[in-house]
């Protein structure tokens, strides 16, 4: 398939247009999987400043008091969205909720450990520790299986 990328300065979220001679099941599947991809940047507040950061920059989002905080490799910012709203906006093959109060970026997981008391700890970028609630294990595995399937499809 021929793929063409056009850069449009000022565009916030990528848009894909599929050109084809006729409709087919494959085209519908392709359109479906593309529409599920959430690639848009996430708004954050750094003091008074408001900015949009690409999703790949984030290690995790977590409930912080009454609000939500986002952690990147170098800083922690406030996010003007609820965790459930973030779940809808984030790429579902890359971000997953691991407990009631935390969503992590699976691409940044560097270690997974199990304690004797059954606590599962995920280390992000080698330093940040996040604890997985077992109630979310099924969802995490589903997300990872989905990501792996996509990886095989693109191979």
């Amino acid at each position, binding site marked *: 398939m021929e793929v063409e990328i056009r850069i449009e300065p000022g565009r916030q979220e990528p848009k894909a247009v599929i050109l084809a001679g006729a409709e087919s099941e494959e085209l519908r599947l392709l359109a479906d999987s593309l529409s599920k991809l959430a690639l848009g940047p996430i708004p954050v507040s750094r003091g008074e400043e408001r900015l949009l950061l690409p999703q790949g920059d984030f290690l995790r989002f977590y409930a912080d008091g009454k609000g939500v905080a986002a952690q990147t490799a170098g800083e922690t910012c406030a996010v003007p969205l609820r965790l459930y709203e973030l779940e809808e906006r984030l790429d579902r093959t890359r971000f997953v909720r691991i407990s009631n109060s935390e969503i992590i970026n699976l691409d940044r997981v560097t*270690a*997974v*450990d199990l304690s004797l008391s059954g606590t599962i700890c995920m280390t992000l970028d080698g330093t940040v520790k996040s604890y997985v609630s077992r*109630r979310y294990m099924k969802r995490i595995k589903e997300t990872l299986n989905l*990501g792996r399937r996509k990886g095989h499809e693109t191979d």
Partner: protein
Amino acid sequence: MKQIKWSWAVRILAGAVLGLVFSVVLVSYMVGARGPSPVVCLLCAALGGAAGVATLPFADDGKSLLLYSAAHFGVTATLFALLIAQLGARGGELLAWLVILALVYAVIWLGRWVGWYVEVMQLRTLLGLAPGPSPLKWRETLPYLAFALLLCDVLPLLLYWADHAVSVDVPVLSGLLLPYILLPVAGFSSGLSLGMRQGVCPLYPVACFLCYLPMVFLLFNYTAMFHCFMAAVPALAGNVLGWLYRRAVPKKGRGAA
């Protein structure tokens, strides 16, 4: 939350009914009396209810899992002890039944833990990470097994032989030096070394205990059972201390360790 409460209620009820059936059918057969008393029926129903919710605490993790498990064991052990007492067990026999219950609990715990470990291994594979340590670090513990065998089997045999070769009245080497100095010091040191290198390895103290067990009956008698603990408990303490040191001191500082 409502669903969880409902699930608990259904399981308790189903367990209680099964417990009641057990009391009517089996207890009468086992005890060989006219039939179970109302107290026995009640205790069987309560124990059935407790068994019904035995798997629910494992849905949580960390502190809540430990608390739920401890509370569940407490309730189950109390009900079980009352039931066994009602059926005529006393003193040592009652204690033996409680030890069996505790062992069953430990086996279930271990089974659950291995299940979680398999899940973590799956996560590691899916994330493309290194496989990590073996379950309960059995592979990492293996090199220390040779030391445990030397300490807990070869050394007692040598000291016992030395004691009898000298033929003194008091077996100073195997009866005093071994259990009160050599086993605790060597057990603690080896546990510490293992903890500093590999973290908590729960199988090492167990290995020390099991390695010494044949020596108790081969060289001494059941009164020397405490020798097993003199090796296993310091090994556990050393291992935990080594793990704490490993956590507290950054890797660079440990360098050659």
